Every structure is written in C-alpha cells, then in structure tokens.
C-alpha cells in the first residue's frame, strides 16, 4: 500500500502543462503498484499536444496487479483531455474486466463518466493531487483546492475490489466511485451477470441528525462505511463522516474493516451538496475519508 501527494498544473495553458498534468497522474497511479497495460495506442506524454476544448488527447489503461488479477481481472481506462474551457483538464474514467489490447475495454464494462472542474485557476497555478492505493486499489483525488470548494474542484477516481467486513478482498466485484463537479456515480461491477445501473450517490447510510443518527458522542466519531450490494453486503474502503466532527486533511487512525487503518478525512475539499450525495438519502454536511495507506 502506498500514498502519493503532489502538486500538478491547475491551469492547462499549453502542451507542456498538459503533459505535466497528465503524466503526473500517471506517475501517481504507477506509484500505487498498478501496472500500465501494453494496449496499443496509449498516450505518449513526451509528444502529446493539448487537445482542443471538449476533446481528449489519448488514454491509458491500467490494471490491478494482485493475486486475484489472474482470475478476476480489473482494468481501468483513463482518457486525458480538456474540458469546455481550454485551461481546464478533463478525464474520462471507466472500469472493466478485460481489454482487447487496443484500448477497448471488454468483458464486464462499467459506465464511463467525464470528470472535470467547474472553474478555472490562473496561469502557473497548481492544485494538489492525492493518491493512495495498492496493487488492488486506486483512490485518486486530484485537482484538489485545499481551501475547499468541492462543488468546483476535485476529481475522484476510486476503484477497488469488493471487501469483506474484515477488509479482505473478494473476487465478487469491483466497487467504483467517480465524482467531480460534472456529476457523481457509484457502480458495483460484478464479475458475472448483469451490471447494476450507476447511482448518483454513494451507498453509505447517512449520518445526518434528521435521519436519527448521532454522529459524535464524547470522543467518538462515527464513520459510515460504503456498503457494496451484490446479493449480499460487501464493503469499499472509503467511508463517510460528518465534516464538522473532524479536522480536514489530517490523517487519522480508526478501526475500520477489521483493523486499525489510516484514513484521510477530505473535509470541505470533498463536501458537496445538491444532487451529489455521498450517502443515502442525503449527505448535507457529510464528507469522505479515504484509506490513506
């Protein structure tokens, strides 16, 4: 397991900043232990040019590299591009269980989503890119404004195997959460059978008081786990908490999924409202904590 935090260009002014931005993300994914596949046609960060608006310059395909990969393979395709404004980066994320070797995902293929910020920064500025993961997990939270404003900033690409309540990976499915100002989606992808439709919310039980939850008692603060439903309850590593209960971006150790784990509370960098819900049925005042190890 690994973490990687770095600053990446926030204002894509030219080919060079586009390359620095995209190759930085690729380097973070590699640092987690994921493996870039040999699919043909993948983006070349030394030659690629910044695309025009609403366009993508190329893609990468990454795969898990754990023991289950041989029988329960997981592939992630990321397309790198530019949003509707020339200086704003954009990605498309999608997950599947196979690839045709030329960039097309096959097998059990999840729903793709475009991820992009809702605003522009200024020339030369950078934003933080958080990444944690392992050979079987990718929790990428990039283009993050540490001051908050998650309704504008922050792109989430979280992909991992379903887990037991003890945190042990299972071969039952893939939990995916993708989010940005452009929309949010959760999708559980089983290795066989019909793939559930995406939901515009994370499957965790809300901690808001109007739903009867008391999120903090004395020194105790509750984290609501993400429950992955595939005929029975599995788990993903990320959890939901009441933002006001914990200081943001200060890693904390909690008992979660059968062990003491370090989580990064994302606070108002991941605090959104409206239809972007992190818990059922409402998430006003809630934020995410991602596994930070």
């Amino acid at each position, binding site marked *: 397991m690994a973490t990687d935090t770095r600053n990446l260009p926030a204002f894509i002014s030219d080919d060079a900043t586009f390359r620095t931005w995209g190759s930085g993300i690729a380097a973070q994914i590699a640092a987690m232990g994921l493996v870039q596949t040999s699919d043909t046609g993948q983006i070349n960060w030394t030659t690629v040019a910044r695309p025009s608006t609403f366009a993508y310059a190329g893609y990468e395909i990454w795969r898990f590299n754990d023991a289950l990969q041989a029988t329960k393979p997981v592939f992630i395709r990321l397309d790198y591009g530019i949003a509707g404004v020339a200086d704003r980066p954009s990605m498309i994320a999608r997950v599947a269980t196979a690839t045709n070797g030329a960039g097309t995902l096959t097998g059990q293929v999840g729903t793709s989503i475009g991820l992009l910020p809702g605003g522009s920064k200024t020339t030369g500025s950078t934003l933080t890119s958080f990444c944690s993961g392992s050979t079987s997990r990718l929790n990428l939270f990039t283009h993050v404004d540490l001051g908050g404003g998650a309704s504008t900033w922050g792109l989430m690409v979280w992909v991992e195997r379903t887990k037991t309540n003890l945190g042990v990976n299972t071969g039952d499915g893939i939990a995916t959460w993708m989010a940005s100002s452009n929309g949010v*989606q959760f999708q559980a992808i089983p290795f066989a059978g019909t793939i559930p439709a995406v939901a515009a919310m994370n*499957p965790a039980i809300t901690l808001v008081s*109007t739903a009867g939850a*008391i999120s903090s008692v004395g020194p105790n*603060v509750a984290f609501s786990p993400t429950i992955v*439903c595939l005929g029975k*309850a599995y788990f993903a590593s990320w959890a939901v908490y009441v933002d006001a209960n914990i200081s943001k971006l200060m890693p904390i150790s909690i008992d979660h999924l059968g062990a003491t784990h370090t989580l990064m509370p994302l606070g108002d960098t991941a605090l959104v409202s409206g239809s972007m819900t992190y818990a059922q049925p409402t998430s006003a005042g809630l934020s995410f904590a991602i596994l930070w190890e």
Partner: protein
Amino acid sequence: MATDQRTLPGDFTSDAVFRSWGSGISAQLAAIGLVKTADTGQIDWTTVLRPSGNSQQRGYEVWRFDDALQATKPVFIRIDFGSGIVSNVPGLWATVATSTNGAGTLTGQVGATRAAFSNQATTSAISYCSGSPSRLNLTTNTNLFTANTSLTICIERTKTSAGVDTGDGIVRFSNSVVSGATTGYQLVPFSGPILTEATTNPALDSNAGGVSALGTDVMLSPTVVFFGKALFASWCAYRNTEITGLTPITFTHLGATRTYMPFGITILGMTLQGSAYALAMLWE
C-alpha cells in the same frame, strides 16, 4: 428468546372484542420475557370499554426489560391501547424511556410517542411477537394481503456487529400505513440529547448502484444505529419481491445464524429511500 404468534380480532364490534385484542397483545409481551411494572393506573382488561372515536387511547400498560443491563441501563416501554383511523380498528402508541414515576408517566430519557394505526377493519388478523428480556419485536393486526392493517413496534437495546446488547441506547421503530402514524425511528441514548424522531429506518437501498439479488444470494440490509460509532438493531430490510413473505428464513446476521420473519407486502418502506423494501424481523 421466544416467539408468539396468535390470531387476534381487528374489528372492535364490542367491548369484549376490544378486550380480547388488547389483552392478547399484553399476553404476547409477557410471553417473550418482558415484565409489566407496578405502575398505578394501568388498563384493566376486564372492565375497559372499546374506543368511541378514532385515534382514541383507552388505557396504557408499562413494561420493562428484564435483562442484566436493566439494573444500570433501564428500559421502560409504555404502550397505549386504542383505536386507529376509525373507532373500531386497532391503534397503538409506543413510548420508551429510562424510568417511570410509578403512575404511568415515563421519565428520565424519554423518547417520542409514536402512533401506529390500522387503516381498515379485519375480522381476525395475526399478531407476530418475538423478543427476549431485552427485545420487543411486535407486528400485530397483520393481514396477509395488505399493508393496511399492520401495526409494528420494535424496541431493543443497541447491538454490536456481533449482536451483543450494549448499554449505549434504546432503538425504537414503529410503522403503519396511516398518514401521521407511518414510520418512526428513534435512538434514545442513556445520556445526552435525544434527537427528533426520524421518519425513515436507517437501512440501505441495496439497488442504488448495486443489486439486491445476485444468483441465489439475496441481500438483507441491516439497520445501522449511529451513536458516535456504528451499532445495530436486529431488524433488516429486503427487496419485497425477492423473498416469500411470512415464511421464516435462516441466514447469517449480526455474528450468527439467525431465523427471521420476512413480512413482505404487509410492511413496506423499510429503507432510507425506495418503497419496495419490506421488514425482516428477528424470529427467535
């Protein structure tokens, strides 16, 4: 732990019928191991008259848990008996608290009073009760073909993920279909503020981004009680169409293999969102 299933009247055509209904429920509470307190003023099933109007309380009983925790974390339950949406159909009111004044007034940490009303008369209906000295799970006035009649009251201690009672709080769930007496969920902690009653049960809609049935597996969503940490109540939610109603099932839940009663269409609306989820009640 015990279960008690009996047929009780659901149409108060006389004082005798009302008495038969209420005393039957009272007998069920005793049968599962709860203890009726010595509070004065409790209903007398030999003399009480049937309701003369809708939503009318005719008297109450006060019950208490009888487990080891009762000495330090006492739980008292006041049940008011009366009429539902019209004078001749059942209505129940449930209130939980941590003490009583001995004359029927609950004190200490006192939860909200939640009504559960039948929406139509039924000549006879089944009353399902399961529990223990630290748990009351009652779904009464159940008609197999409709949700219109059922009244549900579930009260128990918070539990760990292994199903062990804790002294953190009392969880109360109530349900019926009548407007103003629909779902009520409340956690009553043994100390500290008591939140306003919620109108949804804290269980997940398993089909939002996931799938409730896959192959031979059918998911039951646990009721998660947040009190500075995740605790549990014994009742669950499941997709109504995926399990045959009113036939007990056995599955692994809260750390052990347990028997549950799925209530199908008789009790719906058991999750935070979505209406097609039914109640599965611990049936042992």
